[in-house]
């Protein structure tokens, strides 16, 4: 149900107050009236007023003075000035001092309806925007990241310090360790928090598409470029640009990116104008960049440009003390999301979770808990609710390499899910990009399910 819209009508003429209130009430608004400025001020604390419709000429305090008071005390309340004697001077004065509109009595009913509807819609959007921003901040602040591992606590401390600077950050860590989560937290902790956080998955796009995604392009820059497109670097403005899977970009784009980071300006594809960069860059990868440099697949100079501040997130198997904490956190999250009231995880189930190596890290743990919460029949998650790959596949693995095992496991999961990438990635506890990379690496092709 929509929240009630409160409107305060202030006019010294009773007939105006009554007829305006009556008309607005027919539209479902809650309307109260006051006959002068001081009486209106008395009413202000009573409610959260969406709108005050104030007569310009009233004995004692006039409409403009009342509007000043309202705006000083309740800046969210929108004020419309009404008058029967319109002059350009008063209209200009009212608008300059912050009136939303200046309307002349009698009003055309259509105009009045439209004006009020626009105000309410605008206020709803502002309210929704504030709420969403607050929710995002809640979700991604550093103090909401969970760990008691000393290495992780040091990372959080470093991230807090880094957030205040504008330096480029390189976050390394296996898939599912929370590289993007940490970058978002750095952004939310930084003075850039009110500007956008934009994420680009470098591995998900071809080199040409990625170039256009990052730098944008001018109309006619290439076949199909029908309109000008603004790139993510430009869209990020004063915010943060998160380049995920940076280790996967080609050498040409590495060179372009290096130039952009060094010179702090760039050109759109096909453009000649130099556009300055104001955003901060955070890059992340699950690849061993040193090895990639040694093999000539990654530019050393770009690596040093990105690696001004280096953060390496340890895998979950190296900080198993975090598992119970993360389990509790996921339980709380999913209890809210699913409307359930699961109280906890049994001791033996926790032991099982602690014994597992978590190749998909915290993301995989999250998925295992989510599934368990769906299938569990009691108030406590028990061993049989947990679906851990190791429980079914460890046997009979003799003689196979880790890569063979991984390929086989991915193939099986893909078949099980009829090659639905999202579902398969979720089940494997890795993101879609990583799954695509692995499919490419193992040259896997879609095959018909076995019957």
């Amino acid at each position: 149900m929509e929240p009630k819209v409160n409107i305060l009508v202030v006019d010294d003429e009773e007939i105006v107050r009554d007829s305006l209130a009556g008309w607005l009430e027919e539209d479902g608004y809650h309307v109260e009236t006051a006959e002068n400025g001081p009486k209106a001020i008395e009413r202000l604390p009573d409610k959260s007023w969406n709108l005050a419709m104030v007569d310009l000429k009233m004995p004692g305090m006039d409409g403009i003075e009342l509007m000043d008071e309202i705006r000083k005390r309740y800046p969210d309340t929108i004020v419309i000035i009404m008058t029967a004697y319109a002059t350009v001077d008063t209209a200009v004065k009212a608008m300059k001092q912050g009136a939303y509109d200046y309307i002349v009595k009698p009003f055309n009913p259509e105009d009045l309806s439209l004006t009020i509807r626009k105000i309410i819609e605008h206020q709803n959007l502002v309210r929704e925007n504030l709420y969403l921003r607050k929710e995002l901040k809640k979700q991604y602040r550093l103090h909401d990241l969970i760990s008691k591992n000393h290495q992780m606590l040091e990372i959080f401390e470093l991230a807090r310090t880094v957030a205040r600077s504008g330096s480029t950050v390189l976050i390394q860590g296996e898939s599912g360790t929370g590289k993007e989560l940490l970058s978002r937290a750095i952004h939310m902790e930084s003075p850039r928090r009110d500007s956008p956080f934009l994420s680009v998955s470098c591995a998900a796009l071809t080199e040409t598409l990625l170039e256009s995604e990052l730098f944008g392009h001018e109309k006619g820059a290439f076949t199909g470029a029908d309109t000008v497109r603004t790139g993510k670097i430009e869209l990020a403005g004063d915010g943060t640009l998160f380049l995920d899977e940076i280790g996967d970009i080609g050498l040409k784009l590495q060179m372009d990116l290096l130039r952009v980071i060094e010179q702090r300006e760039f050109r759109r594809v096909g453009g000649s104008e130099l556009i300055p960069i104001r955003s901060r860059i955070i890059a992340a990868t699950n690849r061993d960049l040193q090895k990639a440099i040694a093999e000539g697949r990654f530019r050393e100079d770009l690596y040093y440009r990105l690696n001004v501040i280096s953060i390496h997130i340890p895998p979950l198997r190296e900080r198993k003390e975090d598992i119970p904490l993360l389990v509790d956190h996921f339980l709380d999250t999913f209890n809210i999301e699913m409307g359930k009231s699961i109280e906890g995880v049994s001791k033996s189930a926790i032991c099982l979770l602690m014994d597992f190596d978590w190749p998909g890290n915290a993301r995989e743990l999250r998925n295992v808990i989510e599934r368990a919460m769906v299938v569990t029949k009691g108030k406590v998650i028990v061993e049989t609710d947990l679906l851990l790959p190791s429980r079914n596949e460890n046997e009979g693995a003799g003689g196979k390499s880790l890569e063979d095992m991984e390929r086989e496991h991915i193939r099986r999961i893909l078949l099980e899910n009829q090659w639905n990438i999202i579902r398969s990635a979720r089940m494997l506890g890795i993101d879609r990009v990583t799954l695509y990379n692995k499919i490419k690496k193992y040259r896997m092709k879609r095959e018909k399910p076995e019957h």
Partner: protein
Amino acid sequence: MLYIRPVGVVDETLLNEVREDLGVSLRIRVKVLPPMPIPEGSFEGSRNQYHSTKILREMVREIPADAAKLLGLIDKDLCIPILTFVFGEAQLGGPASIVSLARLRQEFHGLPPDRGILYERLYKECLHELGHNYGLVHCSDRDCAMYLSNTVVDVDRKKAAYCRSCGVTLRGAIGPRKE
């Protein structure tokens, strides 16, 4: 009992048609009262219109004791001080309402007269104002009689019936039919 009160001269055939149709759709007994003169103080000389709130006040003075609601019909252009015109006015949740025929006529908009269109518009506005009397506020369903109409185009677009939700609320407010 729902009473219809002509204010000034109103076409008798129209009055009888409204009486019959309201009786069927609202499932309530409807009766047309003798006309009352247009209250003198309701004329706004500077605007050449009649102040609907003042007329309503006069109507309520002579409301029959057994009246569930009292619907006034007038063939003059109506206004309230803050609006350039109104098609009608109702006391929200109160006993009386009034509907004007003036702007519902095609000839008001420079078109040849059309009695069929006039009646359809009039009937929709009667449903609308009576809805307010029974406590309904404006409805967001463009087809519903309770949708706010600021122009005759809005009136023509909506149906001569309440939406399901408004209909249920209205039925609850009217209560079971008493014979």
